[in-house]
């Protein structure tokens, strides 16, 4: 059965008004921002389902921007994230899409860019109680909850990457809880997602990056 801590009942501590429409939205953006290594300068949010219909009244927009700014769920600055994003030189837009229906009600697509025009295109879903799921990165279906220390490795789909990565984890003495590799087409870009119990250190990240087939390493530790 499900495990329920007392803090799942008395909690989460969060900026209101809604765990699914505010706290969950924030969590999606907090995870997504990590996929862009340089400061984000431009971000488009495309909102679906209930997000598209009620985002203003639930502060979903402010929460999403707050996540891009790196605010955690208890941060009272989320209320002012429009102003703070502008001050940080971030250009943003919200585009409700009410025509596509076959999507989970609380879904957002976040398209981010840095100054040089590099970026990431991420789809996330708020799944209730402040929890969230990233389900697509740059068009490739993945599944990331952020409940563990997570490493996302963008790699060429060729032999040897998983062997290299698991060796790096072994050498740093970090236990892997889950490992999944997602790809769309053979031989192209794939995403290796590793969820671990311990903190993912900078030296681990550097080691993983040493293999030329590894294109980008992202760490999500919420």
């Amino acid at each position, binding site marked *: *059965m*499900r*495990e*329920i*801590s*007392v*803090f*799942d*009942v*008395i*909690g*989460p*501590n*969060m*900026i*209101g*008004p*809604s*765990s699914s429409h*505010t*706290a969950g939205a924030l969590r999606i953006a907090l995870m997504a921002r990590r996929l862009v290594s340089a400061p984000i300068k431009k971000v488009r949010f495309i909102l679906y389902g*209930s997000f598209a*219909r*009620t985002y*203003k*009244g*639930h*502060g979903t927009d*402010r929460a999403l921007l707050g996540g891009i700014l790196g605010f955690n769920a*208890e941060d*009272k600055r*989320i*209320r002012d994230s429009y102003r703070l994003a502008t001050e940080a030189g971030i250009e943003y837009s919200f585009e409700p899409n009410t025509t596509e229906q076959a999507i989970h009600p609380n879904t957002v697509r976040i398209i981010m860019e840095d100054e040089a025009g590099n970026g990431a295109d991420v789809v996330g879903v708020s799944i*209730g*109680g*402040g929890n969230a799921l990233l389900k697509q990165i740059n068009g490739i279906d993945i599944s990331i909850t952020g409940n563990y220390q997570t490493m996302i490795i963008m790699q060429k789909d060729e032999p040897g990457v998983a062997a290299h990565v698991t060796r790096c984890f072994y050498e740093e003495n970090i236990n892997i809880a889950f490992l999944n590799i997602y790809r769309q087409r053979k031989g192209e870009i794939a995403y290796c997602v590793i969820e671990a119990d311990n903190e993912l250190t900078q030296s681990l990240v550097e080691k993983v990056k040493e293999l030329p087939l590894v294109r980008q390493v992202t760490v999500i530790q919420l």
Partner: protein
Amino acid sequence: MFNFTTGSELLEVCAQQQCTIAEAMLEREARYYNTTKEQALARMGHSYEIMKEAVHEGQTEELHSMGGLIGGEAKKISAHRAQTAPLCGSIVSKAMSYAMGVLEVNASMGLIVAAPTAGSSGVIPGVLCTLQEEHGFTDEQMIMALFNAGAVGYLIMYNATVAGAEGGCQAEIGAAAAMAASAAVELMGGTPRQCLDAASSVIGTMLGLVCDPIGGLVEAPCQKRNAVGASNALVCAEMTLSGVGNLIPFDEMVEAMYKVGRSLPYELRETALGGVAATPTACQLCGLCS
């Protein structure tokens, strides 16, 4: 031993260990969630601080909700209490005002503790902060009261639901009020069985309450239901402490609530398609369909 999953198991643990519900829940947390009692108490202390701050904000700040449907109600109740003897007595007046204020904080993107949900976040602080002020309980006692409330909420979550989308408002405000009633009984010296009796009474008196927020927003009628949830908790705690028993055991009442919740039509489970949300006036206020 402390891995109870029903109310009757919880009562057995309390009887065997000669402990309160709060102590049993704290022990459970320390044993199964990779933490120490000290850490869990400190973390709950932080949660209680947030609750107190939210109550304070609701009484003092000018709050504007995102949807514009609520704002300023908590202050009105308190102003009335200051000017005249309130009809419900000062404790109920205070509890309802505090509960409503926390909902205003929530609706204006302030910081709250979902207890058990954001939409029902006013009930527990409304009851507990009032009792602390009126009876002079220490913060340590209040933190234990939150563990008691957490035990009741956990049992409802485990065996039923606290989500409005699944069980209607009876599952959200109903759970919050059951948790608050149980905590109040323990604070006032009641036994573990009396705590669950009070919780059971609350659920039985809120059975069938639908979730029908105007515009789909956590504002109205949510705010008033938080006030009613807080008052209901106090009323049921009072009944129990007076020696009024409860015919239906807590576990059976939770199951009944779950069954009622599942038989509620889709329109009455947080979709804003029925109930208050579907009245002509609510439709005018909302603008969702336009």
